[in-house]
């Protein structure tokens, strides 16, 4: 087990290094950097000015030096400066993290509390009209773009309250809290609850076919006891892994949803930074996302072993 954890940790670090190289190179394969863009906008280029700004930003240095400089800074908690605001990148990114984290937590909560019960229901009633309807609903959930759902929620807000719910950084009443965090996270959660439901359903179906379920029925256990006591307890395990998949899934949803609802979180900031070619922000944010995804997946793997005594990672 210990050897496995060490190996997984090693692989994780290797993956993160790989990602950092990929991101770094991707952002630099295009001809034209922030200085070109700024000068294009100004419509006048003085080569001496340009060179001095490039020097100031450090983008006249060789790529390898730039890369090592970035990684070295990263390890010391120095993320460089935003090209656009000229403030330290850390100062720009840090205050936005709790906002996005809160949205993601709400979304995960919604998606589990909607997806798991419906998935169980669908599996238990397999082949009935209810199962059919639930499957169609979950498939449509996967088909609705979350930004459109967000726009529809805004539209409903206009129809009901006559105004568009705006982001409130310090929600005081329950109503403010609701419109600030719950509405955007519902738009994200609808999609991921559909995913949770599909995975719960197929995992539950798998378990319901097992011999010990038949044994439980044979000894006269009630239907609800079989479904919840015997089946769900075991079926819930694979659903935990979904959290890992969903970490990646949620981030995609958050990017568009934060844009729709004008939430000043990390995800929307990434889009803005990409538009501005603000490399320090983009590369640090993408790195942050990669770290979150990789760590969550690692944690899920470990949790899996904790919850399921049959799994012991030995090699």
């Amino acid at each position: 087990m210990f050897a496995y954890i060490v190996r997984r940790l090693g692989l994780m670090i290797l993956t993160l290094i790989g990602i950092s190289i990929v991101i770094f190179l991707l952002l630099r394969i295009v001809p034209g950097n922030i200085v070109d863009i700024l000068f294009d906008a100004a419509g006048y280029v003085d080569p001496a000015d340009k060179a001095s700004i490039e020097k100031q930003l450090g983008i006249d240095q060789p790529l390898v030096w730039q890369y090592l400089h970035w990684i070295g800074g990263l390890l010391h908690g120095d993320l460089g400066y935003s090209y656009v605001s000229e403030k330290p990148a850390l100062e720009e990114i840090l205050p936005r993290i709790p906002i996005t984290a809160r949205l993601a937590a709400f979304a995960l909560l919604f998606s589990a509390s909607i997806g798991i019960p419906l998935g169980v229901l669908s599996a238990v009633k397999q082949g009935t009209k209810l199962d059919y309807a639930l499957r169609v609903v979950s498939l449509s959930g996967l088909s609705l773009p979350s930004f459109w759902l967000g726009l529809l929620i805004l539209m409903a807000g206009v129809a009901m309250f006559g105004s568009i719910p705006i982001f409130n950084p310090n929600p005081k009443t329950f109503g403010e809290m609701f419109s600030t965090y719950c509405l955007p996270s519902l738009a994200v959660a609808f999609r991921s609850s559909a995913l949770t439901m599909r995975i719960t359903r197929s995992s539950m179906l798998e378990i319901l076919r097992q011999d010990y379920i038949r044994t439980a029925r044979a000894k006269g256990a009630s239907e609800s006891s079989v479904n919840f006591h015997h089946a769900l307890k075991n079926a819930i395990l694979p659903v935990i892994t979904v959290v890992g998949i969903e970490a990646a899934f949620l981030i995609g949803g958050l990017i568009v949803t934060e844009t729709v609802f004008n939430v000043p979180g990390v995800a929307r900031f990434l889009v803005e930074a990409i538009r501005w070619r603000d490399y320090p922000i983009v590369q640090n944010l993408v790195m942050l996302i990669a770290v979150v995804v990789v760590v969550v997946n690692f944690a899920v793997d470990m949790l899996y072993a904790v919850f399921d005594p049959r799994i012991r990672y030995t090699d």
Partner: protein
Amino acid sequence: MVTIDYDSELRRAGANANTFWRRVRFLARRHVLGTVGFAIMALFVFSAVFADVICRYSPLTVDSAHALAAPSAQHWLGTDSFGRDVWARIVHGARISLAVGIGSTTLGGFFGVMIGLASGYLSGWVDLVFQRITDILQALPLLVLALVMTAALGPSLPNVIIAIAIPLVPIVARVIRANTLALREQPFVEAAKSIGMSEMRIALRHVLPNTLAPLIVLATAQLGSTILTEASLSFLGLGIPEPYPSWGRMLSESSAEYVRTAPWLVIFPGIAISLAVFGTNLFGDALRDILDPRQRG
């Protein structure tokens, strides 16, 4: 005493589905949802191909006198802020979605198959290297990777196709690799080896055709997500540039500010995206049931 009506039982099992059309009818009756999905997909292909015939207006003609007109007999789905016909833009938008969907799935599928096949069949260090690359690419969410890609390549149709295809490569490669690993141990591969067939030929002639079923299932499943990703990219203003009518782009132009004043600009493009993705998802599910019965739910 139970009497069994053999004829009807056989018919139900598809025993008389011996001609092409009978088989189609049999499958359609058995997979109602899949058939609905196929019909939706056919509808979108049809509108993409015959877009110019279906629409009275050009999707690009600006008519500022009729800007933001509500749906009417002239403009079925209303007009946008430039007075362009929304119906024409949605029908033509099917072309973009279809081009991106098919283009990036094919591109990502091709490289995914090549890498998966090489990785699974050659194993050793090739496998190790490809596996690490796959790990790296899969640690980033599809949309994030596509965003960074389009940011790097610049917004244009071919670049969007490439940007969405690259995140698909590891997904396809992983499935093909797992399949190849299992197939490599099969007796028919051993037989081919024993008669002196070259490794390359075995990989392409014997292993590859046997991975087609999971590949088709995967490709259909991914088709919907490529359409969604294109819509998201364009919605964020980093996908297909103006003036091309992309569904996602139509929503970004009209988003929050038109929620109040021109709801048709928000509702209709969204319906188009959702319906197209829903159709491919329904069809993909049915296809998986038919081609890959082990995964049937």
